[in-house]
């Protein structure tokens, strides 16, 4: 009897823990699949009957969604690729050169609110005429991607045994070759983790695009936000747009759950 009570209690706590997440996401899906009448009905209609894809059609037809999607892909893709290009060797350099002070600088950069970079970068882009360009957004998103990639790579390279590189250098390899052919392949899981987390945080970033993005260059999060303020609020299309914005990130979370968990417990922390 006692054991059954314990079991029920345990599953009840699992239910309580998981239900807030389930509720919000299911409600998001429900809103996106209902017509406007059902969305503003009270008491609320929970199950779309019949479900309609009209809201999704609306999102693509009326809101330039495809353009903003492309902007997001360019900005996040550019910032992640460039971040990996300079961040992975930097992680190696810091780990092997034991540049602890530089590592602390990276951590502080990681912790600094994104908002605090905005004023100087905004002025800089104004002077150079880059405000409203995709280039400005890619450069700004490096503020997000580089610190997280470097921080994670430091951890991974520190765990690659030095002996292997020493052995390769005895065989005549240069430091670069030791990095390229010995350390780098061994740290590949770290590159995957760093790339995924950088992708998620860059994709989710909102404020950079609000201030620096132009009408033609803004990324998805700020584009969806703008559709909230400038149009008569209609819940269905808004929920559909919101779902589409966050869908790539949720898919990556499901597919790469193990890497994400590993990365975050390796100190990837979050961005903001």
């Amino acid at each position, binding site marked *: 009897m006692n054991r059954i009570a314990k079991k029920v209690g345990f599953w009840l706590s699992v239910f309580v823990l998981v239900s807030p997440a389930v509720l919000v996401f299911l409600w998001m899906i429900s809103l996106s699949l209902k017509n406007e009448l059902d969305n503003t009905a009270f008491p609320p209609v929970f199950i779309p009957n019949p479900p309609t894809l009209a809201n999704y059609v609306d999102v693509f037809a009326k809101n330039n969604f495809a353009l903003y999607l492309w902007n997001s892909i360019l900005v996040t893709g550019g910032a992640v690729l460039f971040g990996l290009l300079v961040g992975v060797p*930097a992680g190696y350099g810091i780990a092997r050169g034991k540049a602890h002070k530089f590592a602390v600088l990276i951590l502080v950069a990681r912790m600094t609110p994104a908002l605090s970079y905005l004023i100087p970068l905004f002025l800089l882009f104004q002077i150079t005429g880059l405000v409203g360009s995709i280039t400005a957004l890619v450069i700004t998103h490096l503020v997000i991607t580089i610190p997280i990639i470097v921080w994670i790579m430091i951890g991974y390279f520190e765990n690659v045994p030095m002996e292997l590189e020493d052995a390769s250098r005895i065989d005549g390899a240069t430091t670069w070759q030791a990095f390229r052919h010995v350390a780098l392949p061994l740290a590949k899981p770290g590159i995957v983790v760093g790339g995924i987390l950088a992708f998620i945080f860059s994709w989710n970033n909102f404020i950079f695009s609000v201030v620096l993005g132009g009408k033609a260059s803004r990324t998805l999060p700020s584009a969806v936000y703008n559709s909230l303020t400038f149009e008569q609020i209609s819940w269905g299309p808004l929920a559909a747009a919101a779902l589409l914005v966050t869908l790539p990130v949720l898919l990556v979370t499901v597919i790469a759950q193990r890497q994400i968990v590993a990365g975050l417990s390796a100190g990837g922390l979050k961005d903001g």
Partner: protein
Amino acid sequence: MTTTSLPASLDDVTATAARESADFTPRYWLFSLPAVLVIAAVIVFPWIYTLFMSLQDWKIGGGSEFVGLGNFMDLAKDQRFVESMGHTVYFTVLAVVLPIVFGTAAALVFHREFPARGLLRTIFIMPMMATPVAVALVWTMMFHPQLGVLNYLLSLVGIGPSAWVYDPGTVIPTLVMVEVWHWTPLVMLIVLGGLAGLPKEPYESALIDGANDWHMFRHITLPLVWPFIMVAIVIRTIDALKAFDTIFVITQGGPGTASETMNIFLYLQAFQFYKIGYASAVVVIFFIIIIMLSLLLLYARQKSKWNA
């Protein structure tokens, strides 16, 4: 390969060691050079420039004039700023304590083996990954006083409607609720990492001594994972101070200025009133707090022997 000429390679090893001590750092610094240049441009330059701007009376469109610490003096006297700090403290305390409690409880649950654990854990961590703006929009719809689903759910269990974010008295707790929903999973993951490394022996001997679950948690688990909880507390504090996206989307600091945190205040000063110097002074204050918390984080991490 190396076995063919053993003595030579031994010489090489000592030679390498000698070289290593001679130019260890410069050799590896080259790897960091591109990142150093980029970081200097997009991260360190903004920091220094912000410091410079914070000492100026500077408006976009107007000129700038050196005022020393004038902006900081003005901030101290600015009722709206002082209130925003109060809101930030209120928000931060709740948005640290609640996720720590729930996240630790969740970690204890997910540490156990049970069917479908992987799937349920994935669902549980999804809020943390979801795009904050997208989720904030859905919350906004759920908070609608007349048509929102939350008030309907409350009415089902016999609780009267809440004004949620539309009332100055409930707006911050409501925003905290969203923050808790978002970031409890991160606390769970950090504490779960701590639980994974726990030794088994103390529990076995405690069981023999007839300890119950609560005793074992209180006297064995909690002290052992405490360093990890400390790490989580520091990270949560930094993140709660940084909270911006959801507050901005859901209330923009309103109603009135009831949910205007330092972050929102800073944003409005800079990009609505264009008082660049004034806003930069807020950033500097922020930055000092963040540096202190980051150092605390390094210290806490070292104590948790949390190897990356």
